[in-house]
């Protein structure tokens, strides 16, 4: 049930464009993820800064997060996730036509993370590049991949350069602690708005009712944003994939992490409508409605 009857979009200055998939249909053959084993809990943070488990949990929904060792590159994490995805799909790297990395933290301006993965996996036939759209990167990359498949241009034949042998870690971010500034209240409002508008628009374009969404996989920025939007869309929380309590906000990795967990736990069945919804710095936003085969 919507809370306000005359809902006015605060973000109405920005247009939303929805497309119904055309051309050759694409499918997700397998999902794989990687998260480091090392965990930092809110109680650990209590010892490091002036905060408390209660404060963090109530305002964000985060209880713990998986932390990479200092110096770990995006390339290393992404390669492990790529191998896991290939295993899940039963596909050999040799058969890859395209490697698209969605990230907020590439290891350097170039070569792309994708090209280094291509080299590491030995996938010589794949065209490879990174998509940088902050936390929306995954949804953008998925949409780009779908477009290539739809038009039959699967990447083969594109002029491309492989990465060569780049020493691991050579392109790690120069600044070990980049500072991110955010106008929290504005982003909160924008995020709730855009989640609602995306869901409405994408479902309308697909001819699917909001009540027919079986699983909503939103970007895991903050549980309160997810909860506020879900309530206003009228989506019971049982139909929302939430794992921010375990991983925190992993930016562009949050949607695939949540999707993989949902699949693994049997929450996605054949015929289900799965809505992936991202937003991020930019501001950027994007959503994709999929019917599970």
């Amino acid at each position, binding site marked *: 049930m919507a809370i306000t009857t005359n809902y006015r979009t605060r973000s109405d200055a920005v247009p939303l464009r929805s497309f119904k998939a055309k051309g050759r249909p694409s499918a997700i053959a397998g999902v794989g993820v990687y998260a480091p084993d090392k965990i930092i809990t809110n109680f650990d943070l209590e010892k490091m800064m002036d905060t408390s488990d209660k404060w963090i949990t109530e*305002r964000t929904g985060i209880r713990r997060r998986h932390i990479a060792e200092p110096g770990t590159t995006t390339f290393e994490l992404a390669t492990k996730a790529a191998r896991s995805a290939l295993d899940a799909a039963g596909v050999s790297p040799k058969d890859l036509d395209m490697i698209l990395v969605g990230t907020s933290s590439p290891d350097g301006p170039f070569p792309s993370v994708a090209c280094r993965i291509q080299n590491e996996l030995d996938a010589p036939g794949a065209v490879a590049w990174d998509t940088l759209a902050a936390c929306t990167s995954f949804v953008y990359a998925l949409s780009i991949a779908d477009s290539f498949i739809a038009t039959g241009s699967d990447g083969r034949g594109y002029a491309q350069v492989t990465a060569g042998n780049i020493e691991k870690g050579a392109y790690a971010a120069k600044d070990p602690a980049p500072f991110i500034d955010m106008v929290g209240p504005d982003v909160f409002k924008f995020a709730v708005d855009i989640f609602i508008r995306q869901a409405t628009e994408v479902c309308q374009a697909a001819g699917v009712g909001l009540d027919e969404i079986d699983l909503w996989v939103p970007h895991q920025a903050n549980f309160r944003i997810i909860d506020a939007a879900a309530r206003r869309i009228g989506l019971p929380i049982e139909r929302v994939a939430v794992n921010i309590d375990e991983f925190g906000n992993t930016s562009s990795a949050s949607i695939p992490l949540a999707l993989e967990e949902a699949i693994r736990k049997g929450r996605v069945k054949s015929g289900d409508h799965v809505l992936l919804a991202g937003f991020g710095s930019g501001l950027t936003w994007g959503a994709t409605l999929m019917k599970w085969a």
Partner: protein
Amino acid sequence: MASQLNFKELQDLAGEILGVDPDQVQMDKSFQRDLAADSLDLVELIAAIEDKYDVELPDSELENMKIIADLWKFLEQKTAERLEA
């Protein structure tokens, strides 16, 4: 419509968003102390109010919202401005 400012309506809206009984939403109640609302609850409430009453509440004003009466006064002021315009 802001010209039809109705306290009961605000009570219902605040009650629903803050997860409290609308009757608890009284002028002298503190958002934080009485209604257990934190900063994000307030942002959410303000967003709903902005939608419902077609007003804009700058984030700088958020900090001044301590009790329900602060919010009510703000809405009354906005309504008066609109009637004058």
